């Protein structure tokens, strides 16, 4: 029971088990290249790290704060292009990723400032258009290759282990950030805003600044994910990184796993990473259809996603995920 509750995010004060399990997982993952796992597995894990990071990021804004974004790919894409451009100038990749984060944060402000001030679904609607608009602009921007894409040429040779560990570092960072937020005063404010924004204002929380901050953190993480991916793929194009589909996947990951929880996006990312490849191979046309149906089922039957089902299955009425 305690083991499961620990994996589910734990309640109350963190015990040793809450730290032990994630660390064990980290150690196991870190060891995979060493124990001679095949290249395909490493690639799959890497992609999972990227998706999980974006899922964790989205969850901070959509799950913790209740602000749904349908265009999160815009930060992923901006991060990808920023890192790509910076790496091509010879900068160390990690500095390039920092640049990705910065650009993503600035973009998040441009979207957030007009929309977060207002009550109503303006933010959600605006996000539908943002990613598309940027995609169109980037497709027409010849300096970055336009619709044909942009190539990254790194000075050092490609080493898969390098990318693997960068991805692992990134997802670990994202997870730690997520945990820290949920345990902090900031996390309290975000939950208050999600539950009842006017009441949150009535206890002294400034909804605008908190939402902008959550958006910024989420965007930064997604931007870095885009950067890390770009460096790996060595070639990016607007229709891939700014794709509407990408935004859909990013959103689905935490929703499937358990929106608003700590481990939900991780679970969702793992499932997605494994399933997506198979699904696209078996049902090239229908896989989005399946995702849509899945979304409908989740919302109607168990909005808490897989973790919600687990929670109900264990019949523990107070198992909550934001300690």
């Amino acid at each position, binding site marked *: 029971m305690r083991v499961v509750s620990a994996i589910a995010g734990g309640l109350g004060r963190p015990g040793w088990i809450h730290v032990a399990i994630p660390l064990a997982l980290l150690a196991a993952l870190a060891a995979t290249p060493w124990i001679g796992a095949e290249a395909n597995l490493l690639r799959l894990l890497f992609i999972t790290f990227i998706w999980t990071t974006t899922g964790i990021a989205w969850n901070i804004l959509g799950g913790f704060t209740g602000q749904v974004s349908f265009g999160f790919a815009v930060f992923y894409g901006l991060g990808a292009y920023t890192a790509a451009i910076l790496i091509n100038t010879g900068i160390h990749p990690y500095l390039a990723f920092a640049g990705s984060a910065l650009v993503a944060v600035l973009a998040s402000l441009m979207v957030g400032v007009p929309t977060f001030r207002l009550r109503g679904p303006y933010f959600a609607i605006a996000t539908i258009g943002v990613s598309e608009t940027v995609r169109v602009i980037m497709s027409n921007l010849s300096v970055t290759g336009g619709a044909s894409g942009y190539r990254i040429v790194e000075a050092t040779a490609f080493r898969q282990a390098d990318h693997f560990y960068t991805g692992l570092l990134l997802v670990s960072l994202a997870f730690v950030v997520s945990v820290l937020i949920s345990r902090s005063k900031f996390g309290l404010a975000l939950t*208050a805003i999600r539950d*009842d924004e006017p009441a949150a204002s009535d*206890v002294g929380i400034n909804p605008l600044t908190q939402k902008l901050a959550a958006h910024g953190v989420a965007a930064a993480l997604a931007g870095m994910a885009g950067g890390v991916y770009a460096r790996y793929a060595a070639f990016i194009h607007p229709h891939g990184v700014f794709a509407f589909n990408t935004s859909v996947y990013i959103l689905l990951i935490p929703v499937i796993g358990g929106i608003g929880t700590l481990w939900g996006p991780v679970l969702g990312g793992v499932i997605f990473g494994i399933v997506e490849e198979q699904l696209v191979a078996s049902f090239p046309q229908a896989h989005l259809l399946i995702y849509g149906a899945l979304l409908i089922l989740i919302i109607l039957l168990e909005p808490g996603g897989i973790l919600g089902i687990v929670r109900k299955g264990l019949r523990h009425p107070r198992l909550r995920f934001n300690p």
Partner: protein
Amino acid sequence: MSTPVLQIDRVSISFGGLAALRDVSFEVAEKQIYGLIGPNGAGKTTLFGVIAGALQPSSGKVLLRGGDLTGKKAFQRVHRGVVRTHQVVAPFRSMTVLENVLAGLCFGRHRLSRAAARDQAMDLLKGVSLEAQANERADLISLGNQKRLEVARAIATHPDVLLCDEICGGLSLTETRSILELLRKIRERGTTVLYVEHDVKAIMSVCDRVLVLNSGERLAEDTPEGIQNNPAVVEAYLGRAAAKRV
């Protein structure tokens, strides 16, 4: 007498062509429980909305210790020292009772960190007899307890003035009496309370002074006894025949 803590200065507000409040003025002194009553449609809720910041008056001002509150958003008012409770309780549903109070402590006037605030939060919960429910989800406790939670959360922001909006709605007699006792305790601790209420008996039993509104205008302002014996007030509530009997 020292500066009144809250001054309402000729507040008027119109909705379209209808004047909901007309030149309403009054002052609330420190450490008072000040009641606001009036028959239906008198404008109590509207006046409360203006003082709480949800509505902007067409003219007039609300002053806190001489400082103008006009245009200040809700969270800014909290930082100046004015906090409100809600007529329809608004706890943070997915949080525990304790976390609700923590929110007030962390973002109210003293802005404590989450860890530092924990002990104070438990004290506040003890003050409203909710310490046993500290780890319950806020939406799973009874209505009476949710109202106490709302008061505790509001007090957690360390206000100078607590605005109470019809806090007795939906409560039993015992629950009402204990909430009123809570208000007295709050006054003893030094907070001023502005209390809008439908339940005239509740007001009379707990308030130091009472303002009666009628049709958007100030009708009378006095001690509870004075109000009860005021023929104009009785007439407003019950009609002229009843007033004659006062």
